[in-house]
């Protein structure tokens, strides 16, 4: 859409990158123009972070061409010209703000380096002059991010990547951050904003590119950009849509879990009332910081919350086994030093132990072999190291290990994060099967299409409260559901555009 004489900015053509058996980028085309904020949206695992890592010089692409201001890009450009502002600032918390700006450009080999007048000007510019001599670790997160911006400015960076920068900021802090972003763009720099918060993309970006499965699927600009439109494109663009697995309306079954005035101690969510019935999959959606993730954890006892939690009784299970929890991050759910089989039976070994503490490995292996077949884990042997399996199969092992406990409630975060499409469909089927035996699933989702494919109801969280609970069967297609969710999840989080 721009046909300037000089090819300014960054042009990316047919970029590919493969990690093991995951194709993170599969021919990505993208143009970043100076003077505007480019929004990047896409589901988890779509390749957004890989793109960020390549542009910042942390990773090298397999194939493809990147040019900057008309000439070939090198990894050196990534280091010299690109600044990444992370959700977790990567700074030196033990040094002062001024010293943080000096690291890497001390300029003297002897003695403690001295700050330069130009640095103070930049601190003034980003509003940090008042805390110049404070240690970075003592500052609030929002200010730390500004230190990151200042650090990039003194290094004369002219490409700024904001990677989910405000997931832990307050509304007011976010607004200030966006004002900074705007100022950077107005000064003729390239600004990219990667975000799950569609409302913010709609409010601040001049162009929005939707990345799905490692490709730029859609580009929206100007009037086309709206929160609902982005949500719809995110769902439309997903490949190989599976047919829905919901058995139809499930209602009025036994109540498995009931929360009353459920309030997290740290304030992530407040006064929630929620019920989960036997046999249903209840999805929790909401941007990071909405309290959705914390809600799922709190039900399993891994976030402290007050209020009332009623859990269905059962003769067979001990209370510890009634709720089983699985994180979205496989590095926190699998044991690298154990085999596939050991990972599968880890949660049930206590039942296979004699009174003298002898572990009946034979029986455990038999059970693991059955679980492996039942959960469609593709592994040549149970004694292979767990990390030798593909991501999808690792995730199936993690889910199988949790479900062999036979809990009443399976509390899970992002059950298909970083998983290939085939495995995704299989995991959805396994979750439905689990529910068909009278148990329930409470899952935190970041993808609307996942909600449509597997959930019965969806609880939309915004700002620590339940915005609404929708019945998925009221929506004929994933797109209309996504629009409805987007309308609920983002609205009161977005500060007015400047």
């Amino acid at each position, binding site marked *: 859409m721009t046909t300037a004489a000089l090819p300014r900015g960054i042009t990316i053509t047919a970029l590919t990158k493969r990690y093991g058996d995951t194709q993170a980028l599969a021919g990505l085309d993208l143009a970043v123009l100076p003077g505007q904020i480019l929004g990047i949206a896409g589901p988890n695992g779509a390749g957004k972070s890989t793109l960020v890592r390549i542009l910042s010089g942390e990773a090298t692409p397999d194939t493809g061409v990147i040019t900057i201001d008309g000439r070939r890009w090198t990894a050196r450009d990534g280091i010299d010209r690109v600044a990444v502002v992370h959700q977790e600032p990567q700074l030196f918390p033990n040094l002062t703000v001024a010293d943080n700006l000096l690291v890497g450009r001390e300029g003297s080999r002897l003695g403690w380096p001295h700050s330069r007048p130009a640095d103070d000007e930049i601190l003034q510019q980003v509003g940090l002059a008042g805390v110049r001599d404070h240690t970075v670790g003592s500052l609030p997160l929002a200010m730390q991010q500004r230190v990151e911006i200042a650090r990039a400015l003194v290094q004369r960076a002219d490409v700024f990547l904001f990677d989910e920068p405000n997931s832990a900021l307050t509304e007011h802090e976010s607004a200030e951050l966006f004002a900074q972003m705007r100022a950077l763009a107005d000064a003729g720099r390239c600004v990219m904003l990667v975000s799950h918060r569609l409302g913010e993309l709609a409010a601040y970006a001049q162009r929005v590119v939707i990345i799905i499965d490692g490709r730029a699927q859609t580009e929206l600009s100007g009037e086309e950009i709206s929160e609902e439109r982005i949500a719809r494109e995110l769902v439309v663009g997903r490949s190989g849509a599976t047919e829905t697995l919901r058995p139809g309306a499930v209602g009025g079954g036994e109540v498995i879990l009931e929360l009353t005035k459920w309030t997290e101690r740290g304030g992530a969510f407040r006064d929630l009332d929620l019920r989960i019935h036997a046999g249903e999959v209840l999805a929790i959606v909401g941007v990071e910081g909405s309290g959705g993730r914390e809600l799922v954890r709190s039900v399993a006892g891994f976030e402290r919350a007050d209020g009332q939690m009623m859990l269905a009784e059962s003769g067979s299970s001990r209370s510890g086994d009634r709720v089983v929890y699985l994180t979205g991050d496989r590095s926190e759910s699998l*044991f690298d*030093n154990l085999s596939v089989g050991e990972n599968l039976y880890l949660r049930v070994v206590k039942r296979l*132990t004699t009174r003298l*503490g002898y572990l009946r490995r*034979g029986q455990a292996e038999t059970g693991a072999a*059955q679980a492996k077949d039942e959960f469609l884990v593709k592994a040549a042997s149970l004694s*292979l190291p767990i990390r030798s399996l593909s991501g999808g199969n690792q995730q199936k092992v993690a889910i199988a*290990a949790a479900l062999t406990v036979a809990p009443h409630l399976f509390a899970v975060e992002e059950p298909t994060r970083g998983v290939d499409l085939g495995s995704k469909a299989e995991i959805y089927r396994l979750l439905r099967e689990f529910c068909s035996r009278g148990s329930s699933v409470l899952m935190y989702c970041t993808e609307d299409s996942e909600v449509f494919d597997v959930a019965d109801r969806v609880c939309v969280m915004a700002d620590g409260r339940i915005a609404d609970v929708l019945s998925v069967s009221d929506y004929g297609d994933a797109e209309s559901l996504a629009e409805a969710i987007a309308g609920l999840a983002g609205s009161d989080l977005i500060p007015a555009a400047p």
Partner: protein
Amino acid sequence: MTASATSSPSASSASPGGGARLPLREFGRTAGLVLTIVLVMALFAIVSDGKFLQPDNLLGMLRYMSTLAIVGLGLTVVLVVGEIDLSFGAVYGFSGMITAVAWISWGWNVGIAIGFAFLCAIVVGIFNGFFTTVTKIPSFIATLGSSILVFGFTLLVSGSGTYTPRQPGPGRTMNEQQVDWFYGLSNQNLPLGLPMGAIWMLGVALIFWYLLSKSLFGFRLKAIGGNPIAANFAHLPVRRYKLWAFVICAVAACLAGVLVFSFISTVQPDSGANLLFPTFAAVVIGGASLSGGRGTVIGTLLGCLLLAILNNGLALIAAGAFLQQIFIGAVTIGAVVLDQATQRWRRDA
């Protein structure tokens, strides 16, 4: 599905097709260590003109190994659960000393004195475990602190003196029966002149083998050491197991301390100082990882054997204490580097 996991062992084969990779890797490591030991022994045998293979020499070596192994197995348990213990040397020194002081100076029955030593060791283990798991001090610091603390107590109770039951000092007489019984703990006429220490080592090794390889405890210990965060999410008793690991390590060190006192019939306050680094070297050579989740009884035993061989062989060829240190340091680093290199090679292959 729970039902299938727990109560129907008849269905489906336990080991469906494919190679047994993890056990195979373990076997490869053990075989490599055995091969190294054989080569080093052959080398010493040649260089020392056969002196190395004299029965007396081999038996002496076995005795040193048994002390190292009893302490090393305790350390292995702590390393498997992903922690570190620097206090076992001090506990080893304290145990011999408190037994001697309580028995000789305070006039307690020797059995009660030994029991008291074990009680003290358990207290140190709980102390280490408490500060590591409850107040969440890194175990490196917690056990460094307790090590100095315990050594201080050793000096305090002993008045920095040396104790020998046969010479209890002026004005004291010892119960001969008790003295004989105590010496008998590690001085018996065994066939082939085998040292009693070897029998103790064998017993301890069997217990630890059951504990680490056959029991629920060992399995969970390994899981916790491999990924403490995941272990917590899976409702494994992370703190309790770590506490147990520290207690087990302290008790093993205590046993070794009492046995060595019994064998050499005299005890000095600083006897534990020379044990710390050789034990770490032996256990690491044996394949235990300082980052947790790895470590076996057979590995630790072989590591202790290799270290005993080096210790003995280098002394035999009159290499001198300095060269001995240099050599053992180099072997320790070499073993770990080699282990990591073969792992990487296996991954790439």
